[in-house]
């Protein structure tokens, strides 16, 4: 908490911000107020379209041409941002406030070396050449880059995403600003890299004493990183308070509902469905009388629809709800409709020694190494791994989109599947379908929903005419797509609805296996829960098997029966979900588990991984993981590749360490 006399690092007061879109002004921030004390870290959380990025831009006065402050003020370090002259504004951005963006690859200039870009920051502040060069080197050291001289001479594309983001943070901190704005700084990064960057930010806060505005959609990340948190809904704060209090006992129904959408630790689909939030997010600029959340709230009273609640203080925290005591009294949502545990079915899909090598200009790149697995009807196999682990290639190989190397074998039922999709029989193609990560590109934007589904039914089920029209309707209804959306184009649908349409298309031919390639990673938390429920329900009804690729361990734990951990194209661990989460873990699995930020309990000790994922082009002797492994114990790891050992029924891992020395949860 900040004292009354201290000047806050950032003070936003009754900020109303509007964009002019197609001649109409849409207000996207409605009287946003927040203060961040010196050295404090404040998390601003919200789903897409809630105005969090606009808030960040407004706090830097980076106004797009069609944006306008309707009312209110922004003070940084006591200075009113919108009353400064251009020159003063430039000074302020140079000395007092900095920003780090989501995509470090785009924030850095690709044609200048890192050293040149870093020196520039010092030169703008009026330092001389030698001093700037020393400053640049020093900053890289402070963001824990081991050999700064090597990095200074590199171009951005020669660095990994995690290193790029370190450089961006170094640039932002070079002027020792009073306020640092981080806009989704780890969203594009892999779990272990994300953990590294988050740790770095936490350490730097201690070093520099910088106040932080941390903008994110990820509740767990914010819970770990921030002292105080504001939940943004429909362009206004719904609730604000100390991070721990707020996540432990929310006082706004939206916060409570959001938290319940996340699979709780250990929750699995057999134990019941996830909670969802009915309805949809208000579209930006929508005019609402009464409470913006009233239509989706479980506690709505008549008063909520007529009278907009104000953000009011309730003992050290603030909530925009008329009846916060009701949420406090309410028990956590009950679970319903558990899906029964299945009897083990015979193997439906069998991969035997599957490898995949791509020809590149640098030579052959083997991205999958002798992968063998079995998938049973009605079963979900979760595939986990960082980017470059071969998850997506595995999906393509199974679908026949990328023919695997000769020597391996894929069997569907009793028949061997041809490697190339074009050589597979119609029934074999129909049997394996996919739900893509990004529903944006998965649906043809020139075709209406009923046409997209209708065509899939024609080609995969041979339907036509009235029968087809009836089936389109029933299929979409079973995906909970309302009839009023049947004739519209994808651009008129929300992300969640688009994904439902994409799922409907995947199920048009009654597939036996559906590959789900990160199907919820592009979606908001409240939408993710509904999609996961839908997938679980479809599986229970049709006993379809899923290959579920994801980087989100919470999601995988909820949906998967078995889990496979991939690293550089090799299976490092495979077992039932319970076995993989309980341990003994492979050291890599352990690092993955510990790097996932969590809402529950205090932050654990992270198992930090050294360095970066090696390139697939590098030929490594010994265990593939030895270059980053925290448990490497000797020369054996570097010379002898460990075999995949099954040490308890159904649970195998690839490590030289004896099982009883491996970590457990």
């Amino acid at each position, binding site marked *: 908490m900040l004292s009354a006399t201290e000047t806050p690092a950032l003070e936003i007061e009754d900020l109303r911000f509007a964009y002019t879109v197609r001649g109409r002004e849409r207000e996207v921030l409605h009287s946003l107020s927040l203060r961040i004390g010196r050295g404090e870290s404040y998390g601003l959380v919200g789903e897409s379209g809630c105005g969090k990025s606009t808030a960040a831009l407004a706090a830097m006065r980076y106004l797009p041409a069609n944006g306008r402050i309707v009312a209110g003020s922004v003070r940084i370090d006591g200075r009113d941002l919108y009353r400064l002259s251009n020159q003063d504004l430039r000074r302020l951005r140079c000395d007092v406030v900095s920003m780090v963006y989501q995509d470090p690859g785009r924030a850095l200039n690709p044609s200048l070396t890192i050293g040149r870009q870093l020196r520039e920051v010092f030169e703008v502040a009026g330092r001389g050449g030698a001093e700037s060069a020393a400053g640049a080197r020093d900053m890289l050291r402070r963001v824990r880059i081991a050999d700064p001289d090597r990095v200074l001479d590199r171009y951005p594309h020669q660095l990994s995403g995690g290193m790029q983001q370190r450089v961006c943070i170094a640039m932002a901190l070079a002027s020792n600003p009073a306020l640092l704005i981080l806009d989704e700084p780890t969203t594009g990064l892999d779990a272990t890299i994300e953990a590294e960057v988050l740790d770095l930010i936490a350490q730097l806060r201690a070093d520099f004493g910088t106040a932080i505005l941390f903008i994110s959609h990820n509740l767990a990340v914010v819970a770990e990183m921030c002292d105080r948190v504001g939940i943004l809904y429909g362009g206004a704060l719904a609730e604000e308070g100390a991070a721990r209090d707020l996540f432990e006992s929310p006082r706004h129904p939206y916060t409570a509902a959001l938290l319940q959408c996340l699979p709780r630790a250990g929750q699995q689909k057999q134990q019941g469905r996830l909670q969802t939030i009915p309805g949809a997010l208000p579209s930006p600029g929508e005019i609402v009388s009464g409470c913006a959340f009233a239509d989706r709230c479980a506690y709505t009273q008549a008063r909520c629809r007529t009278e907009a609640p104000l953000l009011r203080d309730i003992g050290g925290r603030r909530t925009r709800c008329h009846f916060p005591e009701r949420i406090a009294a309410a028990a956590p949502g009950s679970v319903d409709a558990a899906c029964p545990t299945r009897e083990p079915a015979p193997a439906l899909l069998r991969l035997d020694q599957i490898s995949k090598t791509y020809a590149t200009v640098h030579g052959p790149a083997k991205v999958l190494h002798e992968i063998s697995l079995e998938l049973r009807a009605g079963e979900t196999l979760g595939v986990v791994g960082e980017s470059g682990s071969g998850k997506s290639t595995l999906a393509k190989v199974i679908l026949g989109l990328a023919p695997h190397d000769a020597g391996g074998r894929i069997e569907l039922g009793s028949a061997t599947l041809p490697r190339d999709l074009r050589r597979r029989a119609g029934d074999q193609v129909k049997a394996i379908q*996919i739900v893509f990560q990004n529903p944006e*590109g998965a649906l*043809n934007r*020139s075709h*209406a929903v009923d046409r997209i589904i209708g065509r899939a039914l024609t*080609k995969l089920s041979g339907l036509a005419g009235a029968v087809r029209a009836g089936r389109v309707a029933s299929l979409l209804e079973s995906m909970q797509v*309302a009839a*009023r959306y049947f004739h*519209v184009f994808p*651009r008129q649908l929300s992300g969640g609805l688009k994904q439902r349409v994409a799922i409907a298309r995947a199920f048009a031919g009654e597939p036996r296996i559906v590959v789900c390639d990160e199907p919820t990673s592009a979606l908001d938390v409240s939408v993710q829960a509904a999609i996961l429920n839908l997938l679980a329900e479809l599986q229970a009804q049709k006993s379809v098997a899923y290959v579920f690729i994801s980087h989100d361990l919470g999601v995988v734990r909820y949906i998967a029966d078995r889990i496979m951990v991939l690293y550089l194209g090799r299976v490092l661990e495979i077992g039932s979900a319970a076995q993989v989460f309980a341990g003994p873990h492979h050291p890599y699995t352990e690092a993955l588990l510990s790097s996932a930020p969590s809402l529950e309990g205090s932050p654990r000790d992270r198992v930090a991984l050294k360095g970066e994922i090696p390139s697939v082009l590098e030929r490594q002797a010994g265990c593939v993981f030895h270059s980053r492994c925290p448990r490497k114990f000797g020369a054996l790891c570097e010379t002898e590749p460990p075999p995949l050992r099954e040490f308890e029924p159904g649970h195998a891992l690839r490590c030289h360490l004896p099982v009883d020395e491996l970590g457990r949860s």
Partner: protein
Amino acid sequence: MSVAAVAPPAVSRWRDVRRIALRSPTFLSGAAIVLFWVGCALFGARLTPYDPLADDVINSLMPPSSEHWFGTDQLGRDVFSRVIAGARDILTVAPLATGLGTAAGASLGLASGYFGGWFDAIVGRIIDAFLALPLIVVSLLALTALGTSNATVVAVIGLSFTPIIARTVRAAVLGERELDYVVACHLRMESSAYIMFVEILPNVVAPVLVEATVRLGYAIFAVATLSFLGFGIQPPSPDWGLSIATNYSLVGDYYWTVLFDALAIASLVIGVNLLADGLEHAVRD
């Protein structure tokens, strides 16, 4: 806030494009000029005060007057009537040539972008070679070889536009080909032709349309140039390029025999370019 359960009308991207275009002064002024000339091409023959082909040697080379607004030419033909009626041939030949070039170029670009590989490499090299040739010189050679008629002019100009349209379409297709909806097509065993023309083509229509409009401007210019050189539209058509060719030696003393035809060509080209500009903005936004 109550969400009415009425069906939202299906709104395709084109409605926005149309609305933005119809609000753009650039697009509207271009459209006005082009529509004026299209009107002349369609109904000109009935609107002209004189027969554009009728000789009146006694009244030859009369300056503009209340009787002959734009004066008369060497044979005493009314220049105003000839300018109005002269829109017909050029506005037949140029759009047909553009249409031919667009259709051929779009097909080639779709195939080249979609199939990729060696096919794309070969087509790409051929396109590069074609683009290095000077348009008018090649057209003259081709027309000399094939003989001059409106049909050959359409064919020659159309084919000379094919490479550049193909290149535009190919670039757009390369972006589309990587999208997952194309993968979804493979997973339901669609034919290549279906994927190219039904799935991908609608998504690349916007750049094609803009490019075609730009090409139309060039086509008008090319047709006028060829006619001026005697290889385009043939007498007795009152075509603008042809009239300028007939009269340009008189321009010192009898400027009206050339000026109005030249202005007609210029205004039509400018009109089409304004149209293309406005369209490009509308498509981009």
